[in-house]
């Protein structure tokens, strides 16, 4: 009797479940035995990552699928080249337009032309050039991460590109350290002279003398230079922090955190390059006499009085014998 009851129950169960099983078929009508098995969608409902158990000590290897990685790759391969290209080429185009419409800002000669005033001492110039030379290599090797395989590899071939990219990567990782040190040096050296004040607002309202013929008053650094300073300090520290998190993987954050760091690093990087292109332009081609400040360290007194009048007065007040003279400089008669 008990056996009969069991058989009847089994038959009833099969009768109830059979139609359901029979309905699970592939699109072509063939039976699909794995249709009800665990799939990716079901796993993602339980956890944002798909991971398993592994026996090797590298715990990070247990991750099988991390969906944010697809979004990061999409950003890096699709969006980043356009953002980078627009930022860098856009700035070059804007500077070219500015040069051809406004022209080079010429040195205005006066009776004080020829006299020199020390603008940056040796250590200031050293700090600037160490940071700048590292920045150029970091920029080129950084742009190579985005554009190298697209623009350079078709020109020089995969073997040469692989070698170049490898040495570019070494340069990027190792020159980052003197760059960060240089940013810290400049922060300590110049922070006091870069505190924004009311005079900067007036300078900005007058277009900094770039748009017209007026030369608004400025201290040691004008509002434009202060913006470059804070950009270099802010972006430099941000690039350093995000870069260190990538140089030491998993030390401070997980794989998703490192992807976020890479996005921030690359976005700031291209804006940083664009900003420094403007800085290079105005410090060399854009303004006559400006390069001398970081070249020899001494600038023409006439130039200094036009562009940094308040600073010149401050310096002259410090010395009873008139303007500061550079090493071995004799006032022009």
């Amino acid at each position: 009797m008990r056996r009969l009851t069991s058989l009847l129950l089994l038959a009833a169960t099969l009768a109830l479940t059979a139609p359901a099983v029979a309905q699970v078929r592939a699109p072509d009508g063939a039976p699909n035995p794995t249709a009800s098995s665990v799939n990716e969608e079901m796993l993602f409902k339980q956890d944002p990552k798909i991971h398993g158990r592994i026996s090797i000590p590298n715990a990070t290897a247990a991750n099988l699928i991390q969906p944010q990685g697809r979004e990061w790759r999409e950003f890096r391969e699709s969006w980043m080249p356009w953002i980078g290209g627009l930022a860098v080429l856009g700035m070059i185009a804007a500077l070219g337009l500015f040069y051809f419409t406004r022209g080079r800002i010429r040195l205005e000669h006066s009776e004080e032309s020829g006299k020199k005033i020390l603008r940056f001492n040796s250590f200031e110039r050293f700090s600037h050039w160490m940071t700048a030379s590292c920045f150029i290599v970091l920029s080129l090797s950084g742009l190579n991460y985005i554009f190298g395989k697209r623009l350079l590899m078709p020109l020089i071939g995969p073997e040469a590109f692989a070698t170049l990219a490898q040495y570019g990567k070494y340069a990027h990782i190792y020159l980052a350290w003197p760059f960060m040190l240089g940013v810290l040096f400049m922060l300590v050296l110049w922070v006091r002279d870069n505190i924004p004040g009311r005079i900067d607002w007036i300078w900005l309202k007058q277009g900094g003398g770039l748009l017209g013929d007026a030369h608004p008053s400025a201290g040691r650094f004008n509002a434009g230079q202060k913006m470059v300073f804070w950009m270099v300090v802010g972006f430099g520290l941000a690039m350093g922090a995000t870069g260190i998190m990538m140089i030491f993987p998993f030390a401070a954050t997980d794989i998703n955190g490192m992807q976020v760091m890479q996005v921030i690093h690359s976005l700031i990087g291209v804006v940083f390059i664009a900003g420094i292109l403007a800085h290079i332009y105005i410090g060399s081609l854009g303004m006559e006499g400006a390069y001398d400040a970081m070249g020899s360290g001494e600038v023409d007194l006439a130039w200094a009085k036009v562009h940094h009048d308040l600073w010149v007065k401050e310096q002259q007040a410090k010395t009873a014998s008139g303007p500061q003279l550079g090493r071995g400089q004799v006032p022009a008669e």
Partner: protein
Amino acid sequence: MKAFLVAVAAAVVLATAASFLLAENQRFAYQAFATSGARVSDPGTNLVGPRWTGDIKEPASASHKMEAGS
């Protein structure tokens, strides 16, 4: 110009020092993930060859095998 040249030289020296410090801090996966219970072999000689060329029968490894066999 002098400040520029000194700055470039300092950058190279600091970068070289950073390369040595970072190398000190870094270990190959076969070193990092080997434990007392799991020996991870050096992939530099058993998968891609000592020069990462894919040729695992280069003179160095061949002579090493001969020595091991004798």
